[in-house]
């Protein structure tokens, strides 16, 4: 049984004996780096991306989008488009307003949250560049794209507001009928921060800026809607993370009956949160398929997606930490401003709230005060992007703890050690009210500092500083934790989220002994087919190869909450395990009956039932499956099935953690940063597939480094997206990233029977403060305490030269290339 597998031991064995990795061992799949079942198709091009779908009579959609950030629409004339060859129809927002409904936001974080209508096609006003105002329907994608320019739209410009603090003055209103740009104020208090501060010897205050990011899943969004012959049923294929939620929301949005809609997420090429949404184009495609009685397809271009797919981050964090002179953290205060963009998408307001509980991180303290203000601006809406609130929180706390260490003259690792929750103190209820399940920060940090050569690098840093080397060394530290496995439904309910956080799995035992696992999770790169096969294979005692996994289709997988928030394994994978156990329990009854033994005498191991004390009396689960199918000889009153399902509502989140250390070399003459080494020691509990875990860490760390050094969605003051194409927005390529050194400690979660924690977002959450912390550490002796992300060579150079006669002058003026922002902005400093 899988819970008996010592995953740590298995991982250790695999590290020492890599030649054993692919040897089949039907009783132990969990913990092994089995090669992915998904890959055979993906490496040969036998893929099912949504844009691959071609149907008889398929029509192609193209969106006419606003070139203005904010304007009144005074006229839309689609008739010139209709004269173009190949164009079948074209519609303005007004033409379809009564059918499209408004796009949903499922997370009203406060009762008085300002929730403006969000029309899939703008009707009378546009509020961000790229908002769709009309739609073309044509015979092929070229004809549709050609017709865009022929649609005549008259705009009466209104002022844009792109800066959150300017927006809060309400001088320019994004939604004039609402009278304010403030979407909500969400407060949380744990303990009395003012009292804690009053007792403090040291208070450090900083302002950190989470720049806006563009998720950049490699597959652009796409949707195909096929009307079935009956005429009132529709199959929606979408490049989405959330087919189940999308089906419900499409029904609610359009008024079409839920049971007439089938949503399929075929192969989906990455999401990172950007496909955790209900998008205008999905609603438009469905409504037009109904209106025209023909299948329709829309595929975004990358540049179009930069404006029409949600962005991430975009927060201003004013954070203050209070401590005693000897380094005991007493309290933390966070005043957060979160840019919603122009509208509230599916979970836009909830993203900063997910972070609210993570600012205190791994540290013990008496008091925590949090205020979050949601702000409307004339920009593309923000929403979940890998980590969703937790990377922002982790960044701010990890940065300021290091700042506190410098203020106190302590080593930043030592300060952390002094304040973190010790391993024997778990489960531990934090000042934010969460109960962390398990962890061992000591072990992860010890392993990381050892792999990193922490003391040696500190010595080299001192030497370079001593000799005024033009290339300075910096060390960044992130001892992160995060909250994953969304989510206990009662917690979501208490936060006013519109749904639960359970996940469903069912297991079908086929007459030949093969197994179908049906899961409500919806993978888009995570390897669920492989991992769920490992889990089910172990629990049922069947070979890995004998398990298939069915997902991503509301017809074949009717119940699910989909994939996001590092939830799939800890909720969905555990549900697979529980369903498999139920199969075994049913099979045990049949086996006992067949072997004419008492059920209580049945033992189950490696797929075989045997009678205690009579080792020859045995039958396999496959034989039981066949006997159950035949149903000739079943226990009295038993239904002829051993199939089972489980819907797991988790009792608690699980809390992965780890220690990431980054060493950078900063060329003080050019400002260029080079990552010299990066060590990630993560503790994600028991590991189902170390290959997949390592891959998730690599990719996650890469995205965190990208925020630290490369990426930023920049708007000019008129609300134009300056970084509007992949040419202008720096998604790192292979030469831009280092080799990562990864390792794990394994502290099983106590939140679920597999002892597992999520890993999808951990790397992203951990890495950004490690990298920026390293950059700042390299140039701290120039008086630098912050460099605004991304730490471009220009910003680093300006930060170094801020106090020089020439550099300071130019630094103060900023540069339009980076939105006219001043390079290094550190509010306060130590008080």
């Amino acid at each position, binding site marked *: 049984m899988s819970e008996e597998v010592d995953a740590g031991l298995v991982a250790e064995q695999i590290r020492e004996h890599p030649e054993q990795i692919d040897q089949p061992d039907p009783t132990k799949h969990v913990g092994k*780096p089995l*090669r*992915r079942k*998904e*890959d*055979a*198709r*993906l*490496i*040969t*091009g*036998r*893929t099912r*991306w949504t*844009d*691959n779908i*071609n149907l008889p009579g398929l029509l192609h959609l193209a969106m006419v989008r606003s070139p203005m950030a904010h304007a009144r629409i005074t006229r839309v004339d689609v008739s010139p488009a209709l004269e173009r060859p190949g164009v079948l129809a074209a519609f303005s927002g007004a033409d379809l307003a009564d059918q499209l409904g408004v796009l949903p936001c499922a997370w009203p974080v406060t009762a008085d949250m300002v929730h403006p209508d969000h029309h899939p096609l703008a009707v009378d006003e546009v509020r961000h560049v790229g908002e769709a105002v009309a739609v073309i329907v044509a015979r*092929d*994608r*070229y004809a549709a794209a050609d017709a865009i320019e022929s649609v005549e739209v008259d705009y009466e410009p209104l002022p844009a507001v792109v800066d959150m603090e300017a927006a809060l003055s309400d001088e320019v209103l994004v939604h004039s009928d609402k009278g304010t740009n403030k979407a909500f104020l969400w407060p949380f208090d744990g303990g009395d921060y003012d009292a804690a501060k009053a007792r403090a010897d040291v208070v450090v205050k900083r302002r950190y800026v989470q720049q806006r990011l563009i998720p*950049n*899943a*490699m*597959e*652009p969004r796409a949707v195909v809607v096929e009307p079935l012959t009956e005429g009132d049923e529709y199959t929606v294929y979408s490049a989405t993370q959330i087919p189940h939620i999308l089906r419900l929301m499409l029904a609610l949005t359009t008024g079409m009956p839920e049971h007439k809609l089938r949503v399929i997420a075929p*192969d*989906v*090429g*990455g999401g*990172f949160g950007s496909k955790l949404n209900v998008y205008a184009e999905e609603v438009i495609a469905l409504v037009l398929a109904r209106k025209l009685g023909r299948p329709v397809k829309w595929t975004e*271009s*990358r*540049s179009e997606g930069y404006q029409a797919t949600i962005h991430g981050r975009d927060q201003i964090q004013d954070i203050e930490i209070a401590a005693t002179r000897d380094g005991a953290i007493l309290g933390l205060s966070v005043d957060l401003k979160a840019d919603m963009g122009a509208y509230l998408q599916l979970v836009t307001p909830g993203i900063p709230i997910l972070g609210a509980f993570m600012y205190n991180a791994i540290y013990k303290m008496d008091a925590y005060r949090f205020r979050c203000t949601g702000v409307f601006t004339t920009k593309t809406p923000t929403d979940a992007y890998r980590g969703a609130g937790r990377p922002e929180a982790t960044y701010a706390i990890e940065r300021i703890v290091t700042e506190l260490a410098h203020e106190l003259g302590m080593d930043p690792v030592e300060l952390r050690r002094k304040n973190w929750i010790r391993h024997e103190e778990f489960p531990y209820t934090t000042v934010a009210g969460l109960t962390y399940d398990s962890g061992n920060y000591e072990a992860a940090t010890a392993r990381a500092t050892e792999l990193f050569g922490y003391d040696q690098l500190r010595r080299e840093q001192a030497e370079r500083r001593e000799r005024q080397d033009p290339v300075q060394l910096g060390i960044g530290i992130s001892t992160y934790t995060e909250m994953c496995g969304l989510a206990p439904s009662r917690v979501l309910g208490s936060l006013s989220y519109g749904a639960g956080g359970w996940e469903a799995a069912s297991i079908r035992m086929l007459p030949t002994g093969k197994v179908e696992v049906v899961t409500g999770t919806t993978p*888009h*790169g*995570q*390897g669920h087919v492989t991992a769920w096969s490992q889990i089910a294979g172990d629990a049922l005692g069947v070979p890995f190869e004998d398990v298939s996994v069915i997902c991503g289709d509301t017809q074949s997988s009717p119940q699910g909450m989909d994939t996001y928030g590092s939830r799939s394994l800890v909720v969905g994978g555990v549900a697979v395990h529980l369903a498999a156990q139920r199969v075994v329990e049913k099979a045990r009854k049949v086996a006992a009956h067949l072997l004419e033994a008492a059920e209580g005498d049945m033992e189950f191991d490696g797929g075989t039932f045997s009678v205690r004390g009579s080792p020859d009396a045995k039958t396999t689960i496959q034989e039981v499956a066949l006997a159950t199918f035949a149903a000739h000889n079943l226990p009295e009153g038993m239904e002829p099935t051993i199939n089972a399902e489980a819907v797991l509502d988790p009792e608690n989140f699980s809390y992965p953690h780890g220690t990431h250390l980054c060493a950078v070399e900063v060329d003080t003459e050019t400002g260029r940063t080079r990552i010299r080494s990066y060590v990630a020691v993560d503790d994600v509990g028991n590991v189902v597939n170390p*290959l*997949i875990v*390592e*891959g*998730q860490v*690599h*990719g*996650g*760390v*890469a*995205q965190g480094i990208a925020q630290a050094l490369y990426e930023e969605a920049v708007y000019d003051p008129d609300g134009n997206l300056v970084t509007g*194409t*992949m*040419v202008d927005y720096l*998604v790192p*390529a*292979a*030469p831009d*990233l280092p*080799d*990562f050194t990864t390792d794990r400690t394994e502290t099983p979660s106590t939140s679920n029977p597999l002892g597992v924690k999520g890993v999808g977002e951990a790397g992203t959450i951990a890495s950004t403060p490690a990298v920026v912390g390293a950059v700042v550490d390299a140039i701290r002796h120039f008086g630098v305490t912050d460099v605004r992300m991304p730490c471009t060579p220009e910003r680093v150079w300006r930060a170094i030269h801020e106090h020089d006669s020439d550099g300071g002058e130019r630094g103060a003026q900023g540069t339009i290339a980076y939105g006219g922002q001043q390079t290094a902005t550190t509010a306060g400093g130590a008080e």
Partner: protein
Amino acid sequence: MRIEVTVDGVRYSDEVEPRLLLVHYLRDRLGKVGTPIGCDTSNCGACTVLIDGASAKSCSVLAVQADGVEVTTIEGLATDGELHPVQRAFREQHALQCGYCTPGMIMASVDLLNANPSPTDEEIRHGLEGNLCRCTGYQNIVRAVRSVADGDPVAAETAAGAAGTAEVTA
């Protein structure tokens, strides 16, 4: 305009609009949907194919420019049911997650190894800089390419040698 082009060993003769991109010709006309599109600025490399054995982003090539050439896509890389060593290595080294960049990344890697059968890690990283991956952080891609170079120096032999050429005229 009429073009004659061999794709994955099959000869095609087709009328195409002069502006038609090769990638759209492959996907929309030939049904070669194994080659995906990831951007509109030739940055991402997802659509990389081999043209007469050299890698090219098929979004940056017009179909008419492919007249008379031999195109190999990810769908034609395996020969006689045997995966190309680079394909095998990508699976072995977990060099893909969502798999969307994978066709282009594999084709670019094949070309890289053709040009430089024993590249250093740095040469691999620079050789693949025209191909973006958002999932893997590139580390396992580098490993995969290196494993081919280390394990089998002739593995990088041209991929374009597809057997049996059939003829299809549309």
